[in-house]
């Protein structure tokens, strides 16, 4: 077979084997993005044609052209190349990231841009994603691969964390966070669901711990009090999930209820420190888990104990991490997204203005080029990270919902394509692509409509920028090329 490269197999013919649904979605979204960029960069006093290369829309069209050619080339290349050269590509990406740290100039506080000419700048962080996706796909497709071995986990973590750290060093927190998306890929390949739950719990505890950190309940804050009760409840659920041990779960819940109920009765006569009561209840849970663990000699109970203790430690450290580790602008962005601060002139300005722009669009929008907020530059970064505002203002709820549904369709289609791969390489790579799109969509749109903190990452295919469009095109079309040959792999 190897010697027979020149022979054109039927599945190498693009027309016959490529997934036209994804290709069509790609072009629909890229052109929607192009129009949005034209609308977002429109200037009343200096009207440019959508094709004018001195404008952003014109430049984006150039990038769309380059991307299309690149997509075609990627589909023409031999599909095995991606598998074979995965590590090589990864190595080049890492090298570029390292070089960037030292070479890049400071652009808006970020050192992530390689300036080639004044008008052409590349952001290696946008390209590193597909390098990592290729590398972990290659690694996980090796013969008889088992995810849950310490060595494999360590290698995978290293592969993912290395670019993450390098991008953090470039002060591009947003792009670095994208690598969190790979957890979803690992989950599909066998990472315990507990990791996802733990991650979800961490987010919930973090939000509760911060949002209710101002009110004190005895010796602890209100946030910590609520978190302890949540930990007890989740522990009971875990006991059920892992051991189907309804009796123990009932004991945990009844025990906690008894402690709080008794304390309430006592508090009618003697004032009690409810923070102390919560800690006592927590201690009782811990003792119960250890006793059960020793009695049944089953590590699941100990595991629940470990979960409870680590959760408590996490909850206890939230305020310290928030106040002493995070930078002031990050603290502010998080507080704004939690609704704890408005700060309309500072950190809250972007989000407030983008909510105004989107909200003023109403049900059907103001119409193409009729959006006042975006035209008059009320929304910062409106043709890059905040591009979704233009869609929301000019196309209204209908338009923005359609765009979101297009994304949903694309991502689900990619998951479907990934699932139909016969080998792990295609599947892992496909999941990586879909997960990265999902992460970008969630964080970007979430930020624009005030659900998530302001994290500057682009909206795939919509945000202006050659690097991000090329990056996403490469990411997507490599997968389409791999998918073309799924039957013989």
């Amino acid at each position, binding site marked *: 077979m190897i010697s027979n490269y020149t022979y054109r197999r039927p599945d190498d013919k693009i027309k016959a084997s490529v997934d036209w649904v994804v290709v069509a979605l790609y072009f629909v979204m890229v052109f929607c993005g192009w129009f949005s960029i034209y609308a977002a960069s429109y200037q009343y006093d200096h009207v440019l044609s959508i094709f004018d290369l001195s404008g952003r829309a014109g430049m984006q069209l150039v990038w769309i052209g380059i991307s299309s050619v690149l997509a075609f080339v990627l589909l023409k290349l031999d599909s095995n190349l991606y598998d074979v050269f995965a590590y090589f590509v990864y190595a080049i990406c890492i090298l570029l990231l390292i070089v960037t740290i030292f070479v890049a100039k400071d652009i808006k506080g970020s050192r992530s841009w390689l300036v080639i000419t004044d008008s052409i700048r590349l952001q290696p962080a946008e390209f590193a994603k597909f390098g990592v996706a290729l590398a972990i796909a290659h690694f996980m497709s090796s013969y008889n691969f088992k995810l849950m071995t310490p060595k494999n986990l360590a290698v995978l973590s290293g592969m993912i964390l290395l670019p993450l750290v390098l991008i953090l060093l470039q002060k591009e927190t947003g792009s670095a966070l994208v690598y969190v998306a790979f957890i979803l890929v690992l989950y599909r390949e066998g990472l315990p*669901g507990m990791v996802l739950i733990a991650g979800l719990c961490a987010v919930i505890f973090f939000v509760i711990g911060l949002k209710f950190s101002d009110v004190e309940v005895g010796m602890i804050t209100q946030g910590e009090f609520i978190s302890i009760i949540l930990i007890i409840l989740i522990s009971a659920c875990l006991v059920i999930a892992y051991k189907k041990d309804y009796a123990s779960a009932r004991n945990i819940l009844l025990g906690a209820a008894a402690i709080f109920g008794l304390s309430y009765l006592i508090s009618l006569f003697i004032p009690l420190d409810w923070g102390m009561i919560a800690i006592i209840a927590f201690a009782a849970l811990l003792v119960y888990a250890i006793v059960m663990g020793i009695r049944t000699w089953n590590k699941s109970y100990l595991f629940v104990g470990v979960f409870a203790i680590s959760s408590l430690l996490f909850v206890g450290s939230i305020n310290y991490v928030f106040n002493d580790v995070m930078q002031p602008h990050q603290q502010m962005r998080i507080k704004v997204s939690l609704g704890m601060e408005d700060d309309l002139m500072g950190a809250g300005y972007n989000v407030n203005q983008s*909510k105004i722009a989107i*909200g003023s669009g109403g*049900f059907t929008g103001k119409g193409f080029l009729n959006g006042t*907020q975006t035209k008059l530059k009320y929304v910062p970064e409106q043709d890059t990270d905040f591009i979704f505002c233009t869609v929301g203002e000019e196309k209204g*709820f209908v338009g*923005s*919902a359609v765009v979101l549904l297009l994304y949903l369709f694309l991502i689900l289609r990619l*998951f479907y394509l990934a699932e139909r791969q016969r080998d792990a390489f295609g599947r892992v790579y496909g999941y990586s692509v879909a997960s990265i799109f999902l992460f970008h969509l969630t964080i970007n749109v979430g930020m624009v409509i005030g659900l998530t903190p302001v994290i500057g990452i682009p909206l795939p295919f919509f945000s202006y920028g050659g690097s991000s469009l090329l990056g996403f095109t490469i990411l997507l079309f490599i997968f389409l090329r791999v998918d073309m040959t799924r039957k013989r792999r």
Partner: protein
Amino acid sequence: MKNKNFYEKRKYVIGGVTCLIVLILISRLFYLQVIKNEYKNFADDNAFFKKTIYPARGTIYDRKGKMLVFNQPTYDIVYIPREVQPFDTLDFCNILNITKEQLLKKFADIKDRRLNPGYSSYTMQTFMTQLTLAEYGLFMEKLYKFPGFDIQKRALRQYSYPNAAQVLGYVAEVSKTAMEEDSYYSRGDYAGKSGVERSHEINLRGEKGVEILLRDARGRIQGRYENGKHDVKPVSGKDITLGIDIDLQAYGEYLMQGKRGSIVMIEPSTGEILCMVSAPTYDPSLLLGREFGSNFQLLANNPHKPLFNRAIQGTYPPGSTFKTTQGLIFLQEDIIQPSTSYPCYHGYPAGGGRPACHGHPSPLPLEPAIATSCNSYFCYGLSAMLNNRKKYLNILEAFDTWKDHLVDMGFGYRLGVDLPSENRGFIPNSKYYSKNFKTEKWYAQNVISIAIGQGEVLATPLQVANLAATIANRGYYYKPHIVKNIKGASLDTLYTKKRITGIERSYYQNIANGMRMAVTGGTCRGTNIPDVVVCGKTGTAQNSHGKDHSIFMGFAPMDQPKVAIFVFIENAGFGATYAVPIGRLMLQKYLKKEVPPSDKHIEVNMANAHLISPFDNYKNGFRND
């Protein structure tokens, strides 16, 4: 692989999470775009800069069409902070006559967002308003030296004459309460504060226009919204013509200089006010421009109250001019006949009582009593009326009948002149005395001085002038009014309706005859102008403030009267001393256009009489400040 299938099921979890995320995002969008409505308004507030286009305020003319108040362009210095480059501050300060400290403070104040919330370094800021012509010329010449600065035109009120200040009133920035009462006004708007400027504000101000401009996030204007489709054009204020004759007004003010008092002249056939002098007065141009604040303080603190329009705000005892009303009432109520005579031996009751009277033949019928201004005659008359138990049940009924006649003649209530702050004067009723005397059983003797215009009775000069007009018309009047004509609108019917006092025309003729006799051979000989049949009545009102008030009321000619006049000079002594000669000059001026040379010596005497010496030069004094 044993777990292969198990893990494959996770695609459902992953797919589910994906759907859930998109669902959450769409729900949030639905909330922002469909459920919450306020964002639309926020967006409009952001993007639309509603620039007010100020209409030209209406011009004010006098009855002969002479322009009294008009708009003149004035110049403000403005600048765009971003575009300002270092400049020669010394030169700058010299042109504008300010110190460098003032310059720096101005810049600091403009930048202070607490004082100037709309500050943006991209938008035009006003540095200094209302340049003098000299400053404007100099600054324009050197404008190129101060990049970022510019000159902006604005309209400012201008006055052609230094007269009629209290009638015209002034214009100033609206107060907070005015803004709350009328949503038309917004911060920085100008509105009439007194005089015609205030009472005809609605006509004069016009309607503001608005230009909807698009403003970007930095406050820069990016053009008009939909090419001005939603703009509203301003409507200019209506031009107003006054009944005032500015030459007559100026002459009155000239004669009244150095005195406190008032001259009101009315055209009896229309009720138009020909002149309304209130002395001391001021030059209306003082309350303009940058010196408004300091000048206003000076005027407000002046003990002779130049801002106070004595003609409608001042109330005085009308003195002997009031006797005409008494004669009319007694005749109408059938208390006396024109031929009824009362004795007078230097006072009422007989024997030099109170009030006393001067020497004249006795007894006298009504017309000579008016001519000689006999106090006793009217005291007997009032006494006869109040004590008439055949006609009236009791003194209370009699008194209220007396009062009602006076109200019908325009006393006791506001006449309703189209100027703000008119005073209603005071005519007591029976309840007032019953309350004062703490009994309903009081006697004519207790109140007798009101018969000769003293005591509790108070009237504004305008009310007495209106009385003169009523006698001239022999029984009716039109509400006196300042504005003769509003361009593009008709005058309020209030001022075109004939008001009849309800007293017989023939009785008015008796009073007119008496007033004519006063001019030909009585107290009022000073107004006996050759070839004009003048009717007049003097007055000398005692008061608690010092010397008597000098009063003259009259009209001319006797038949087909053209003018009714009232002259009032505070604390000047006998009516004949000042009020009568001034009345004579005013009548000459109005009826003959020019005062004949034979009367020039009277003019000189009157104009040079300074009765309030320390402030006699107040007008010029302010002027040079």
